[in-house]
């Protein structure tokens, strides 16, 4: 069998695996807050996110077509082995941060991995650093801050408009934001599928072009579109419960109005950035929104310790995935045997991370236990009154029984 075919097949396989990890790593972006507020059951939430990601991946191919432009200077000879090595870096970093429950950017991991592999193959001169600073680094600093400010203002406005005095007996109706959360979180999931699903399509196509199997003018092959869309949807449905737990209740206690404000802010930031041509990280935007919404409610608190860990992971994402990408690149330099060795090594690392994660399993069952505690604190006054009536009834009944004796 042709060696180039084997290498390209390996690129396709690892790209789809990256897409899968991207899906479960980023489920939290759209669904952590609706799960935390009790707007959706965990399984329903991830199923909805999977469907919206699947639809989003098919809506246009502009992102896929532009994934590789601007990262390398013109004339750089991109090899399939280089793409493979870059993806290795991205997958490894995604799995490590998933294990730690840290919502880091899958897109930055992908960029970092490809840049690291590019440096190892063709040197620093092949990287378009000016473009990376403008398109990746600066938006990475600004996006979470903008989303946080938007979510903070929106939360303040939502609470001000629905405020009905300090009397707890008067219903504020804030539980109704849960219905809105279905739409706002769907929007975020759709935008995620559009951006991230297409990134993988772009990377696979880049590998196919590098392997000489398609030309630049051929566009994205249909089988690439379908396989990438299915991979990200499957990954999303698998649910990255560790990260959902962090974003849903680890960063701040989120109530329905805050959840709606956070998701609207995330969706708006992605929409605005798409309009102006910025490739924002949905993960960073979503995390910034949760922090902003957490601060926006009177008495709300943000767990700054956790937020600090997340920000630290953001800073490490590019260099760490670049380092793994570069190490992989040196292995793949050895030819097909190197690619096979690299694939075996990455598979072993992935299995090891999954095995270690099983010691402290987080899934749709126990992610809810903490969420339910949070949900109890957002009971509507009607629920509180109904429970009080039921308790009084039970007390009266037992008193009656006691009297008869």
């Amino acid at each position, binding site marked *: 069998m042709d060696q180039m075919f084997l290498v390209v097949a390996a690129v396709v396989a690892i790209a789809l695996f990256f897409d899968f990890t991207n899906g479960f790593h980023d489920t939290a972006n759209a669904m952590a807050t609706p799960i935390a507020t009790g707007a959706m059951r965990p399984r329903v939430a991830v199923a909805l996110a999977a469907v919206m990601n699947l639809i989003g991946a098919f*809506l*246009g191919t*502009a*992102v896929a*077509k532009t994934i590789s432009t601007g990262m390398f200077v013109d004339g750089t000879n991109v090899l399939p082995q280089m793409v493979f090595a870059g993806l290795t870096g991205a997958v490894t970093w995604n799995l490590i941060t998933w294990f730690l429950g840290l919502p880091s950017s899958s897109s930055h991991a992908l960029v970092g991995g490809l840049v690291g592999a590019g440096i190892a193959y063709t040197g620093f001169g092949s990287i378009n650093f*000016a473009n990376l*600073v*403008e398109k990746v680094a*600066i*938006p990475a600093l*600004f996006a979470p801050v*903008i*989303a946080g*400010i*938007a*979510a903070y*203002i*929106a939360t303040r*406005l*939502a609470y001000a*408009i*629905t405020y009905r005095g300090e009397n707890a007996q*008067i*219903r*504020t*109706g*804030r539980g*109704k*934001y849960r219905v*809105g959360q279905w*739409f*706002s979180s769907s*929007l975020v999931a*759709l*935008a995620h599928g*559009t951006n991230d699903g297409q990134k993988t399509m772009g990377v696979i196509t880049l590998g196919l072009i590098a392997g000489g199997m398609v030309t630049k003018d051929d566009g994205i092959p249909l089988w690439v579109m379908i396989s990438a869309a299915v991979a990200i949807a499957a990954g999303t449905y698998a649910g990255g419960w560790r990260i959902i737990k962090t974003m849903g209740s680890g960063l701040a206690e989120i109530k329905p*109005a805050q959840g*709606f*404000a956070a998701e*609207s*802010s995330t*969706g*708006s*930031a*992605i*929409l*605005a*950035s*798409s*309009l*102006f*041509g*910025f490739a924002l990280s949905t993960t960073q935007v979503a995390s910034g929104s949760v922090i902003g919404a957490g601060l926006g409610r009177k008495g709300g608190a943000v767990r700054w310790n956790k937020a600090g860990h997340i920000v630290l992971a953001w800073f490490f994402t590019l260099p760490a995935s670049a380092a793994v990408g570069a190490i992989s690149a040196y292995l793949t330099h050895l030819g097909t045997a190197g690619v096979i060795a690299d694939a075996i090594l990455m598979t072993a690392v992935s299995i090891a991370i999954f095995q270690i994660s099983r010691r402290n399993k987080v899934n749709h069952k126990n992610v809810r236990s903490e969420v339910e505690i949070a949900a109890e604190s957002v009971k509507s006054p009607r629920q509180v009154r109904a429970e009080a009536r039921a308790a009084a009834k039970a007390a009266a009944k037992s008193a009656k029984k006691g009297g008869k004796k």
Partner: protein
Amino acid sequence: MNIDWTKFYEVALGAIGFTAVVVVVYSLGVRLLTNAQHVAPAAAKGDAKAARTELYNRVAAYACFAVAFVALAYGVFLMFDKMYNSK
């Protein structure tokens, strides 16, 4: 390196403005629908004024929800329109 800072400001203002509009409109809907629910028991007992208040608040609330939904849908439309036209 030539960074276009104006674009960043526009993204920031666009994101904050759009979020505020959607959340304010939806929150008004929540407030009005809750108003309607507050007077619903009186309306059910035959109070004509309460019935009118309930009806007006309910209609206005659903109008607000519809506007918020249309705003979200318009945002999605703009995003995909831009993506297709930027080929």
